[in-house]
């Protein structure tokens, strides 16, 4: 069926089977391959995107369910090539290694910090506890989000 979804500020159309996940629609139909698929059943969080302001797992949603919604993917965070505060803080903090989980963490943390700009370490740990990273042991990711929150508050 033909669908139109607002993605990163633009109306994007596609023709999809009803069974196609939002993750596959973003990756295969729109070539937005920054959204990664790690487990396909909502456990790892690599496919997290922001849908109408909330972090959601795009592998657990069908593309047709996103009709009428506003989706932001990792590609929508720094469209002009300038890193945002969170991305910059994560770079400064050596947050990641292989990078496969990265878009999911960045989107999850972006949605969380937007809603909770005053969050401390414990809240950030809670908020990211549904995302899996196999490389880093998480500490550097928490460091990056904390640094971003701190910089945001200083601005």
């Amino acid at each position: 069926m033909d669908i139109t979804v607002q993605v990163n500020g633009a109306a994007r159309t596609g023709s999809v089977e009803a069974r196609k996940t939002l993750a596959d629609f973003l990756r295969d139909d729109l070539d937005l391959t920054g959204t990664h698929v790690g487990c396909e059943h909502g456990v790892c969080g690599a496919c997290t995107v922001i849908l109408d302001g909330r972090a959601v797992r795009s592998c657990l949603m069908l593309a047709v369910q996103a009709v009428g919604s506003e989706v932001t993917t990792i590609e929508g965070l720094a469209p002009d090539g300038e890193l945002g505060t969170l991305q910059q803080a994560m770079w400064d903090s050596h947050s990641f290694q292989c990078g496969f989980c990265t878009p999911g963490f960045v989107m999850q943390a972006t949605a969380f910090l937007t809603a909770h700009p005053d969050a401390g370490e414990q809240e950030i740990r809670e908020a990211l506890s549904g995302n899996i990273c196999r490389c880093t042991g998480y500490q550097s990711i928490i460091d990056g989000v904390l640094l971003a929150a701190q910089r945001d508050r200083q601005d």
Partner: protein
Amino acid sequence: MAQIAAERYTGASVKRSEDPRILTGGGHYVADLKLPGMLHAAFVRSPLAHGRVLAVDVEAARALPGVVAVLTGADLAAVTIPGQDPLFAMMGGGGPQPEYSLLATDRVRFAGDPVAVVVAESRDIAEDGCELIEVDYEDLPPVMSAAFALDAGSPPIFANLGDNILGPHKRSEFGDVDGTFAAADHVHEFHIDVHRHQNVPMEGRGLVASYDADSGVLTVHAATQSVHVTRMGIAMRLGIDADKVRVLAGDIGGSFGLKIGASREELAVAAASRALGRPVKWIEDRSENLAASGQAREESFDVRAAVSKDGDLLGLDVRMVIDTGAYPVMGTMVSGIIEAMLPGPYKLAALGFESTAVATNKASYIAYRGPWASETFVRERVLDLLAKDLGLDPLELRLRNVAPRTTPPFMMITGRPLVGVTTKESLERVARMVDIPAFRRRQAEERARGRYLGIGLATFIEAAPGPRSGEAPSGPMGMEHMRLRLAEDGIVVLFTGQMPHGQSHQTTLAQIAADEFGVPFEQVRVVVGDSDVVPFGLTGGSRSATMTGGVALHGARQLKAKVLDFASLLMEASALDLDIVDGEVVVRGDPDTAIGVAEVARRAASGQFGADVDTNFEVQASFDGGEGGWSGGSHCAIVEVDVETGIVKVERYVAAEDCGALINPAVVEGQIRGGIAQGIGAVLLERSAYDLDGHVHGLPAADRL
């Protein structure tokens, strides 16, 4: 984190050059690739752990619109060369030779064993096609434990072998084992099991194979730790000349030992592309990854320890059994390394070691983060148990037994010199950081309140690269190669066979070369992931930092000497008086003379110099590991055990490691922390458990720490 150091990049936590692309969704992983005319593969897998394949009916799948081909085990057997796992074969793969085909034909040997591959216009259609394939199986009794596999009555998993022994029993002795045990004050006996667990990188296996019939070249976009090992593996099993296989790799979503060489599914996809003359893509999904990609470390150890009444560990006698799973990959090869490493940094004077490796109806035993690491677990566990039995402090027992740092170096009883080992220092450091006496007081207080706190210590040495010794005349890890070039735009380009998958080589190797050659960090490029371009290499076995870091250093030095020789003509000065500073060639002490390296390179490329002037700014460098040496460290965990539920909470974890000079401290810390997290997960949360029928418990869950 420190910013780029003013004087030297090496030793500073330089920000990773990989990160801008990774943080913006600009990484290029194999699943992201689309080629014109590309087809998609999905596998039909056995639901049984052990069974006979009586019939495979693929007609309905072949008739499904969008399905381009169905290749059964028999179809693939006709177009591939049977034999061992290519990596196993390249590493020498001895022992009994089980006979099997690429995909299952007459027998399935674990739940998840691939039986057929469906190739279709989309992955969804390929999976629909799999659903339409009917396989008629006859159950065979599964062999689900090493103990049963050792039983002569267990059904042979491979028909051409009379039993399930893949690594026949062998025994070695170092020192006077009988005499040591006879003279010991005490002999203690322990049984230690290491459970099966697995790599589970965030990205599973995957490839896009693209065969061009006109040129006969098979191009494979792979997720691999070595483009060359994968190239050679595909050539070996597809019967193609190795120079007709080109392997490319982009970003890789972790591996931890999983993605080396060419697995059965990857070979089947490559063969399908050749058969169809079109690109074929296969991206492993998570349930396939958990069931079929491979698992690690199911080993058991019966240990006898000879000790003096004062706590001197005099000798060990170890009997090891390895559960290699169904299709041998490397399970039969680890025992030799474990044997060599078992003494660790200790004075152990006698070691008896015997091992047997058996086949079972489980996923194959594969490499995972130091496949030999059970040597550390077994040795350190034995020391803790001995401390308990003898009523000694575990730290004191270790310090008492650590080999002294002497000249000439103390020799491990298994043969290698303990050069530069700092076990005593790292043990003392973690003990200080934790304040063990204070912990013991708190532990006693909490125990009185009904809380159960515990402390664990362990120490290890790692052959990274290992010492130079008589046994390894070509260097501790063989040779590492690199090609380096100064391009006409002034960029120093490093071509390496390393295939980073999280280790940050594009940053760390550039730091070393920038310092040594004399250019800003941003003026170095590290090229990886194209078997037509990079020299042979492999990211694995703890070799990259020392071996590739070493060749980057020596290569940059060679390239600089070449550039300065040429510049001496331009600048009418002796090369000995020239240096490269911040990207400019200068006469020492005369900054006004500076010429940018790009200008020097352009002049060299201008063709205006005679044949007797070397204007080729490219070098082939090699490094043999020099004198080598050991890395190592000590770890300490404080945990609380809920004695009602058995739940273990890690309260504190402290590590002190000696890696020599750090290239990039933030990268090193990231590696250590990530390893600790996986270790905790492996021990407490991630057992790959099978039920008695041979199904993996808990599929398709992907819960990992």
